[in-house]
């Protein structure tokens, strides 16, 4: 496996906030997270809203320094000027409507990127590079797009411009924070295909953040699941989806719409979800032990007090769950396997 380009090692991010009583508290947005991005590989980060995905991406993009832990670029802890760092790492935002300044033409965006990072003086040269960039993101004929304003472009086209702008820097790592969730359903796949192309053609390392586990499976190589600021499980995508090793991953996969499950007995399909699991925990005052224990059907006593350590599985999968430490992983897989075999047979 290739060397990691970008790594997060045991990073945490705590945001100080003012609570109602006027005292300051901290939001533990990310707690003790590890992440490795390698050239030519795509890691998907899934988790529900507020689980800290964006925070982690922004930590990797050096929007703010981690509270603890460190970010390493090519094995070196990062320091110094942001601009040098941004030559290697670029972030793509969720909202293609928001990440382009409506007052600037496409040309301006690309031009600034080229000037800032490559210092190209010659106008013709920059022009050539811009056209090239737009062609790489399949905006053709490129010349026609250069002088458009964002509002003259559709959502998909805008997101392509955003990607082109990020690519202008010639980064090694691309962080995509839900890059398709605001796009129309019908054009999402094109965007995923574009990202996939960039990965294979340019050997970019990609972080793909999403809510949608199905699209994660479509695009990525590895999946990492976050819950309430912590990473609960990760590993090769098919393994994680076929055999989730954490109760939360299991719940997430089961809750995702999947028409293939069969449409015959609809009520039965939903029935298992009917029992109320409650809400995700507050990050200001997270539950002790495993964050998931209040909602976990398998919760043990130890789950309520101790943070579960990492369990590595032979297939590269890993999880933070006491079931594994206590030798009761079977509880989980038994139920999961039963279901998935059932599916395969049908």
């Amino acid at each position, binding site marked *: 496996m290739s060397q990691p380009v970008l790594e997060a090692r045991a990073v945490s991010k705590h945001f100080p906030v*003012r609570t*109602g*009583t*006027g005292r300051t508290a901290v939001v533990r947005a990310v707690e003790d997270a590890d992440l490795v991005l390698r050239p030519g590989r795509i890691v998907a980060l899934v988790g529900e809203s507020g689980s800290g995905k964006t925070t982690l991406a922004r930590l990797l993009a050096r929007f703010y320094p981690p509270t603890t832990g460190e970010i390493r670029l090519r094995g070196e802890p990062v320091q110094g000027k942001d601009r040098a760092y941004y030559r290697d790492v670029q972030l793509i935002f969720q909202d293609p409507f928001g990440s382009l300044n409506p007052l600037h033409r496409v040309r301006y965006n690309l031009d600034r990127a080229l000037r800032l990072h490559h210092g190209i003086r010659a106008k013709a040269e920059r022009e050539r590079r811009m056209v090239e960039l737009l062609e790489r993101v399949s905006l053709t004929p490129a010349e026609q797009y250069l002088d458009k304003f964002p509002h003259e472009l559709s959502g998909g086209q805008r997101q392509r411009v955003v990607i082109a702008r990020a690519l202008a820097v010639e980064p090694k790592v691309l962080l995509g924070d839900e890059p398709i969730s605001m796009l129309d359903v019908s054009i999402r796949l094109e965007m995923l295909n574009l990202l996939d192309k960039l990965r294979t053609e340019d050997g970019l390392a990609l972080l793909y953040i999403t809510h949608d586990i199905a699209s994660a499976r479509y695009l990525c190589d590895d999946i990492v699941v976050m819950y309430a600021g912590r990473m609960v499980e990760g590993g090769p995508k098919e393994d994680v989806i076929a055999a989730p090793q954490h109760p939360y991953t299991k719940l997430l996969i089961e809750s995702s719409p999947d028409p293939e499950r069969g449409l015959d007995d609809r009520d039965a399909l939903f029935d298992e979800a009917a029992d109320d699991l409650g809400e995700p925990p507050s990050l200001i005052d997270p539950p002790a032990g495993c964050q998931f224990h209040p909602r976990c059907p398998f919760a043990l006593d130890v789950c309520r007090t101790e943070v579960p350590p990492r369990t590595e599985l032979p297939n590269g999968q890993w999880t933070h769950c006491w079931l594994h430490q206590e030798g009761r992983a079977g509880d989980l897989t038994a139920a999961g396997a039963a279901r998935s075999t059932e599916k395969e047979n049908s």
Partner: protein
Amino acid sequence: MRASRRWAFLVRRLGFYLAAAAAAVALNFLLPRLMPGDPSSAIVEELERVSGQQVPAETLMSIRAIFGNPSDNLAEQFVDYLRQLGHFDLGVSVVNFPVPVADLVWQALPWTLLLVGTTTVAAFAIGTLLGVVAGWKAGSRFDALLTPFTTFLSSVPYFWVALLALWVFGFVLGWTPLSGGYDADLPQGFSFAYAVSVLHHGALPAATIIISAFGGWLLGMRNMTVTTVREDYVLLAQAKGLSPGRVMLRYAARNAMLPSFTGFAMALGGVVGGALLTEIVFSYPGIGYLLYEALQKRDYPMMQGVFLLITLAVLLANLVADLAYVVLDPRIRARG
């Protein structure tokens, strides 16, 4: 949790107003000292003008003993100043020497409170109410006529409206008195005739302040209502089949009103300033007229006293507006 949040908000606001009051006091202290000239010299000049003679050195000394010596250490002066304020001692009026400024201010305060206080509240109420209706029926003929008209009203200088009103109602029609707070030939006191007289004198100034002030509230409220009416919860309230009046008041207006209270701070200073000018037109015996006279006669201690009082009163009114806000808005967001 909920209660504590509100308290926290209030405590924070109270802290802010205390800081603002402190700043106002400091400003009040510094203003005359930053400006060219100083109160002592001013009083000396006044004396020279009256007596037509140069003031002897001894006189100068004794005046400085009263009004502070500009060559004294600033910190010491400030301590003295604070000590004086602690006793509600705003100094001595120059032109009315040796009458304390505080006495004069006390004397004028009730009139201003009566006039400005009631009209500000009335203008706010009327403006808000009409604004809700205009916003609710946005695009209707009512709105199309009322809104530009109030735009006009809100742009007219207070004193000009006052002048016009005085001319039409006081002079041409003779319905209202031309000046003063009550009929001079009535004994001042708690009698019916006196009360009627006070109302008779106050009606026109009050009306002009209301006319000049309500437009601003109306326009703000109208736009807020228009925006609020498009909120989902108003749509849902209509979907629930509630009566239009109920939807308008409990759902749209109730929410649209909240920013008005935050905007109160911005507008209040202007309204008070305008009302002060109105007092001058009507020779109304309030704080505004006092300030006018102080300005005319360069009575610095008086100017300072009046300004301090106005500022503190406005701060207090803002605090009240914030209190109202706390009562009205269950979500107290963290705000500066």
